[in-house]
Every structure is written in C-alpha cells, then in structure tokens.
C-alpha cells in the first residue's frame, strides 16, 4: 500500500515536472518571438540575507548547507535557462575587491566555498559546453584559487555555445584603470618603435584592454536583493544596458524573474541598438 502511494506520488511529481517544463518551453517560445538579449549580467546580491533567513551555517560541508551554496545553484539554474533561451553571454558578479574589507573569517569562508565550487563548475560547464572566463584582478586571489581559475579557463577555452564570465576580485574602476595603464603602455611602445605621431588614445583601444573584452556590452543588468545601484560593476559597459532591480534574494531567483526582466528589455531594445550604433560612429 505504502509502495503504491509512493509510486503514485513519484508519478505525480514527474507529471508536474513535465508540465512545468512544458509551460516553461512555451513561455520561452513566446519570448523568442521578440529580441533575445545577447548578454545578461547578474549582480548576485542577497546571499547573506538568504542564509540568515534560512539559518544556514558558514560551513560548506555536507549537511551544513554553506551560506553560498544556494547562490551557486541559483547561478547554475540561470545559466541553464539562459542557454535554453539562446542568451550567449552570462556574467556574474561573484566577488568584488571591496568585499575584501569584510570580516577575515567571512572572506576566508567565501574563498574556500569558491574553491570547492570550481570543481563542481568544471564538471557542469563541460557538460553544457560553456566557456568560462574569469574577469578581475586575479593577482589578489590565493595561488590555489588563481591556479584553479586558470585551469578552468584553459579547459573550457574551446567551447563556444555560451560564455560564462565570473567577475572575481573585480571592480569596474580597477578594470578601467588597468585598461588605461595598458593603453598608455601600448601607446608609448607605438610612439617609440613605429614613430607614430598620433598622440591620441582612442576609446576602442581602452575597450580592448578591459577584462570584459571577451564579451559584448550587457543588454540587461539584473540586480537581486532590492538595491538599486551598480556597486562598481561594469560601469564602462553598462552605458546603454537596461537596468533591472528585483526584490527577490539571489538564491531565490526563478524563471519568472528572468522572463519579466527579458520582457522589459524587449520593450526598449530598438533605442538601445540605435544608441550603440551612434556611439560606434562617434
């Protein structure tokens, strides 16, 4: 009797999953009638509030449910949905240079959690044929973390279905400064060896030296957690992006949040394309 009840429940669960999957496919089909963003960036805010809400421990060990585990899985789910929709570039703001100012034990716990997740990420992205790129000042990370990041980047360099950029030890001002320094150095070399008389540094030269040069400018920047600010994320690239802030905490983000953000983007796409074209002409 009990077995029958369990198998009925299992069947009901499967039917519900199939039904929700079918509904999702239909919704995505409708969305694809309009323009789909090429690049979505996420500011993954709200992990600590979620952990507090769920009373999660710092410990990432099995059974402990680390603070950022739910956030990691939320990112993977978003990656899956974006791939299904046809969004080629996904960027996630994982760790800011400003986050180093947090309590040392918190930073350590976060770094340990990231290192643990890289191994999982390695398996998942190879399955999904996703190229992984790390944007940020990786010199600020520990040797182990940096080595893992480089290894993952190299291992996935040939995949082209989607590109996942993880911003780690990143701030936009640091990125711009780094690009400015590189551009100045290149100009100095050009002037010295090529007798280049043009002293001007062009906008495109600066853009080429950005950490985010691997991806085009984001079409949408989604921030969870209810705040309405960029927090030093993609300042250079966000000039024409549609900014979408949502109250939901990052680990709670779902397909409907993504659908709503894309619908809003589709209302304004024409203007965005026009402005990008004009800036290139300038």
């Amino acid at each position: 009797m009990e077995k029958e009840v369990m198998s009925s429940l299992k069947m009901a669960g499967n039917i519900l999953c199939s039904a929700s999957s079918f509904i999702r496919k239909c919704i995505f089909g409708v969305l694809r009638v309009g323009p789909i963003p090429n690049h979505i960036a996420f500011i993954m805010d709200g992990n600590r509030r979620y952990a507090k809400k769920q009373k999660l421990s710092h410990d990432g060990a099995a059974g402990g449910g680390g603070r950022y585990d739910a956030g990691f899985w939320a990112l993977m789910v978003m990656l899956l949905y974006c791939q299904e929709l046809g969004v080629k570039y996904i960027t996630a703001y994982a760790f800011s240079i400003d986050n180093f100012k947090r309590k040392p034990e918190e930073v350590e716990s976060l770094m340990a959690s990231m290192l643990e997740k890289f191994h999982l990420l390695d398996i998942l992205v190879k399955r999904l044929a996703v190229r992984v790129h790390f944007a940020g000042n990786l010199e600020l990370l520990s040797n182990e973390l940096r080595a893992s990041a480089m290894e993952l980047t190299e291992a996935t360099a040939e995949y082209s279905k989607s590109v996942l950029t993880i911003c780690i030890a990143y701030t936009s001002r640091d990125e711009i400064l780094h690009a400015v320094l590189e551009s100045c150095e290149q100009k100095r070399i050009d002037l010295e060896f090529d007798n280049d008389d043009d002293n001007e540094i062009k906008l495109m030269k600066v853009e080429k030296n950005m950490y985010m040069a691997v991806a085009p400018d984001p079409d949408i920047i989604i921030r969870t957690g209810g705040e309405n600010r960029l927090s030093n994320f993609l300042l250079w690239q966000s000039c024409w992006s549609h900014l979408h802030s949502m109250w939901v905490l990052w680990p709670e983000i779902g397909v409907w949040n993504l659908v709503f953000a894309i619908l809003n983007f589709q209302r304004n796409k024409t203007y965005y394309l026009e402005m990008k074209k004009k800036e290139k002409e300038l």
Partner: protein
Amino acid sequence: MPFSLHFSPTPLITAPSPLSKPFFLVPYYHTLHAPKSPLCSSREHALTHQGKQEAFDRRPEDSQTLPLGLRKDAMPSHVAVIMDGNRRWARLRDLPVRSGYEAGVESLRKIVEICCKWGIKVLSVFAFSSDNWFRPKVEVEFLMSLFERGMQEDTGIFFRENIRISVIGDLTKLPKALQELMVNLEEATKNNARFQLIVAVSYSGHYDVVQACQRLALKAKCGLIEPSDINVSLMEQELETNCTEFPHPDLLIRTSGEFRISNFMLWQLAYTELFFAQSLWPDFGEAEFLKALLAFQQRQRRYGV
C-alpha cells in the same frame, strides 16, 4: 521668496501628467518610485507617518527648511539628474518640441531652487549628451540657443543666490559664442560657495574617462608622473568632475521611466543610488523630488562591502 522673476510660487504637490505611461506597462519592482499600487501606497503611508513622527520630535529651527520626513543628516551632498522626457512631454500635448525643452528649463530652475533650500551642495544635470548631436539640426540649434539664453538670463540669479556654475563635456563642438559664455560664467562664479550646478553639455561618461586617460598619458610622456603611479586618485583628478568637492553623486535620478544610465558619468556612479522616476522631466516637481530623497534616505549604503 521667489527664486527668480521667472518663477511662480511652486505648488507643493505636482499632479502627475494624465498622459504619462500607464502603470501596467511599467515593471513593478521598486515600490518607492512606481506609480500608485496598493503596496506602494502603504509603503508611502508608512514613510509619511514616520516623517510626521520625526517632524514632531524635531527642533523647531530644523523643520523650517526641510519638508516632513527628510532628515538633514542624511541629505545627499551631490544629486545627479538625467532630464529625460522633454520631447515626449511636448508630443503628448501636441506642442512643438521646443516647448518641451522650455518646460524642461523651468523644471530645472525649480529643482535648483529646491536644492538650495534643502541644503544639497551639488546638482549635476545631463543637459546634452554626445549622442544628441545626431538629432535634427534645427533641434540642436534651438538647444544651443536655449542654453545661451538661459545662461544669460540667469546670470544675475547665480550671483544673487551665490551659485557656482561648472560646465563639463567636449565644449569644442559647441558654437564659439556659447563656449565663451560658458567659460566666462564658470570663471565669474568660481568663488560662489552656497551651491554648485554642474551642467553636462556634449558629455559622455566614455569621453570623460578617455580624456582623463589622454591627460595622464601626456603627463607620463612629459615625465611629470611615472606610469606606475597612475591610480584611482590620479585618475579622478583628471576627470571632468574634478571641478567639485563632491565628485561622486550620492543619488542619480532619471525621469521618464527609462531604466538606463545612457553614458552619463560612468566612473563617478560606482556607488550611487539610482532612482528611476516615472514622470517626464517637465512634470518632475517638488513632490517627485521629495519621493526620490525619501527613498534615498531609506537605503543602506554599503559601498561595495
């Protein structure tokens, strides 16, 4: 006391334009600036009630300049505004586009007056973007003449009210007469200390960073600095916002319901609180500005930590 002879007494509540974008087309995700909804109304009611309590507790002299609910200690030092919606405002009323711009100038005058009254130190306004050069020639010429006329007419007010004017952007593209007027006005008002109005004309955030980069490269080439010395602080000294004591806006307001920055002050907006107002710029008055400031004061600023 009227701020200038051009002003009529400012109404406390500005009615939203009946022809503004309907609520159902607007994404509902930030209750404090969305048009009226049940949740929005209750949130505003809570804020107003809190404001009334605070006003009751406040000393008499503090309540003279600030309206109910606003805390003096939490006022932003620098507010930036993207004045969007002038043309739509005119089109919705079957008026020529120039009427929209003129209404926009009046709205700006009111906001400047309010900023002076409420103790905001700096107001930056995005008057004309680098991309706006692509607009029809007639429209661009009208805007240039409007800037010229506005600056000439309000010169007396700037001196009387102790307002400093700064202009940022690529001024080389502007007509010579306007360039001279702007430079002279900047020079003449540079010692005014009560309030600073920064007008961004022919400006873009990308242009600002690139020109700072070029200046640093030139300094490095001339041996004034070492390339390895280039840091955030040096970079900020070369940005166009080096004309003010408060180069980073605390609050950015964009009107007309668009949710983007449109290439305005990109570097400077790193930790700025963003507020997207639904009303069009000519309709943006004291009530909407108060909403924006109340929303700002409710936010917890962590500066990335």
